[in-house]
């Protein structure tokens, strides 16, 4: 990080190499859009470069900090998307994609696809909490810091997400 503060672009490339995959995975799953995820990851590293001097090791790991930046950028994109949708459809568009015949379509999916589809059905905040704790390997405290929540609020989000997934599985007989 000191090299980054000193303006060393090679250090930035090294950090991108280390954190790129995890950040890309998180943004892709949260946004469900590869192009937007790529934008978010790029912008996250540019912010890292610009704000490197303000990073404090005692306030959390670099990965936590980077995920926090990426998360906020994702939230901006989701908000803009929701505004665009509500402008286009005057608020009548449902939050989740509607499948013509859910049972028929879903029973043909592999388990991995079922899980991905189920995750996409969750509201963004619940999805983010679950992704951070279950797939990105963060502890509850770190995930709460990334999302800007208290630990209690995070646990509540996680519990709601798990409950929703359980119901979804039951509903579709998975």
């Amino acid at each position, binding site marked *: 990080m000191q090299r980054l503060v000193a303006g060393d672009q090679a250090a930035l490339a090294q950090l*991108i190499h280390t954190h*790129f995959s995890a950040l*890309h995975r998180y943004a892709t799953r949260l946004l469900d859009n590869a192009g937007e995820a790529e934008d978010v*990851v790029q912008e996250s590293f540019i912010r890292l470069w610009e704000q490197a001097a303000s990073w404090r090791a005692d306030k959390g790991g670099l990965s936590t900090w980077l995920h926090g930046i990426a998360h906020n950028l994702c939230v901006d994109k989701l908000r803009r998307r929701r505004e665009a949708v509500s402008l286009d459809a005057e608020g009548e568009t449902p939050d989740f994609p509607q499948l013509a015949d859910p049972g028929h379509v879903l029973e043909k999916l592999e*388990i991995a*696809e079922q*899980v991905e589809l189920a*995750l996409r059905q969750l509201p963004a905040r619940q999805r983010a909490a679950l992704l951070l*704790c279950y797939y990105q390997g963060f502890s509850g405290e770190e995930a709460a810091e990334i999302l800007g929540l208290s630990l209690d609020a995070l646990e509540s989000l996680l519990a709601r997400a798990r409950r929703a*997934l359980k119901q979804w599985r039951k509903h579709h007989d998975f």
Partner: protein
Amino acid sequence: MISEQRLHQLLAAYGAEPQRWPAGEREQARALLQNSPAARRAWEQACSLDDWLEQAARPVPPPELERRLINAVNRRVASPWTWLKNWLWGESLPQHLWRPALTLGLPLLLGLGLGGYLWPEFRTWENEAHLEYTAELVEDAYAPLWSEDENLEQGELPEWL
């Protein structure tokens, strides 16, 4: 010792994997799990959802994306001098070949174009047309004089010259 209710909260939020439980409560929760059949039942139920969630595919970024991203970020954060150097010299082997050629060729073409525009007499085809036109004018102007000396031998000059 944490309460059974708290253990249920941990299972409901973090699932069955103790590594996800808050470090400060982990050992106590494990001890309670061994002593409480109700807690063990809740743990087994949590395992089922965990196993299902574990099977999610992990999105893998395209292999060339990292290099593309590094280049894009470097371009955005580069100082003006670095930006100019990269623009002129390029950032990869093929670019090291064509960029300098372009860097040298562009000013040359620009110079030729600008020169041709500012000094049109340098344009050969126009110069030739201009000479032909001048020759015709001279010929027309002196035609009456030439016609008076029609009887002159080839190469002989008229008297007035």
